[in-house]
């Protein structure tokens, strides 16, 4: 799974994070390092779709929070991926 929007949503699923924290978190759990341009491209799109929202920040590092719609979209995507993974695993067993 390398879709930046899903990676950002997955990163925010366990709590609010600012850009650099997301970058580190994604690298840790997915083994993918999102470049600054890619990360903020995904953040821009997700905020436009209202799947995440920017929170007030004390300094320049603005944290982001996943919205209800964003969580629902992530759940749908994870369920879909889960079906693909389950099918692939079963077929590999029988091969």
């Amino acid at each position, binding site marked *: 799974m390398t879709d930046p929007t899903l990676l950002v949503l997955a990163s925010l699923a366990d709590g609010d994070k600012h850009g650099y924290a997301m970058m580190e978190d994604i690298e840790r759990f997915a083994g993918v390092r999102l470049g600054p341009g890619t990360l903020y491209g995904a953040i*821009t799109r997700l905020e436009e779709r209202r799947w995440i929202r920017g929170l007030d920040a004390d300094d320049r590092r*603005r944290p982001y929070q996943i919205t209800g719609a964003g969580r629902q979209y992530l759940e749908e995507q994870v369920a879909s991926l889960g079906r693909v993974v389950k099918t692939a695993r079963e077929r590999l067993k029988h091969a």
Partner: protein
Amino acid sequence: MRRAVWWAARLYPDEWRMRYGAEFDALLDDAGLQWRDLADVIRGAVIMRMATWMSYWKMAALAGIAGAMLAAGVSFAIPNRYVATAALQIEPNQDAQGTVGYGSHQLQQGLEQRQRLEELKLEILSRDNLMPLVQRLDLYRGRRSRVPVEDIAEEMVRKHLRIIPFSAQVGSVGQAFRISFEYPDRFKARAVVVELISQFQSKSLQLRQDQRLGWIIESGTVLRILEAPLTPVTPISPARGSIAVAGAMAGMVMGSLFVTVWRRTRKHAVLNISLPDEIRPFVASRIGPGGYRSASEYIRVLIREDEKRKSGSHS
């Protein structure tokens, strides 16, 4: 490398930087940047610019189409103008050539024909000669009610009537010239040229008759029509295609300018802020890599922070 990425981040559109610029710069400060991040930031900036330009281009294209339609409409309000043309040549009289010897006087005869053309031209294009023509052919009817016919005759010569010499065939002795007249009515345009040819013919004939009466002129004049005047079919103006293209271009420029001005006036108000000398160095130190892009951005951030503090103290 950090500096290169910092500059690449300035390629993002202003609107995007207004919203994400500060936090994006903070990310660049925090992250251990690699060379591939430079390409990544440039790519991101290009994608964001494309998204912004789309609306820009849409507006410019719409304004361009509107401009083209308006210009085409205006061009149809401009009356067509036609040009009737005839080519003629003043040649030495065959009788005279036989008398004086054609070859020995070729150069002199050429000069004489040219001089004769100038004399005839002055006479035919004179105000006194053209005024009756204007009235007889009912030319410039609308203008004649406002402007004296003398002035109209002068304007006719200055703008619409041309008698231009040109080189005829090689070895030809006579002086060739072209008469052309430009007018909105194509039939009247031709009628004027026909009338002028007739005048050239009659005045050339007078000169020849004068010779027969005993004038001491070595060569006479014969007027030959090289190209007869035809009623013009295609107007020379207005060039409606060019006008429509110019309208489209002007519309696109106006549309782009409108979007630029509209965006700037809608989102920004210009304030002149004077700073005392002791503060200026500090403000300057906050601008640059790792800091703010400009003094305006710095002031904007300070104002927003104050706004937040104020709303927090009320709640």
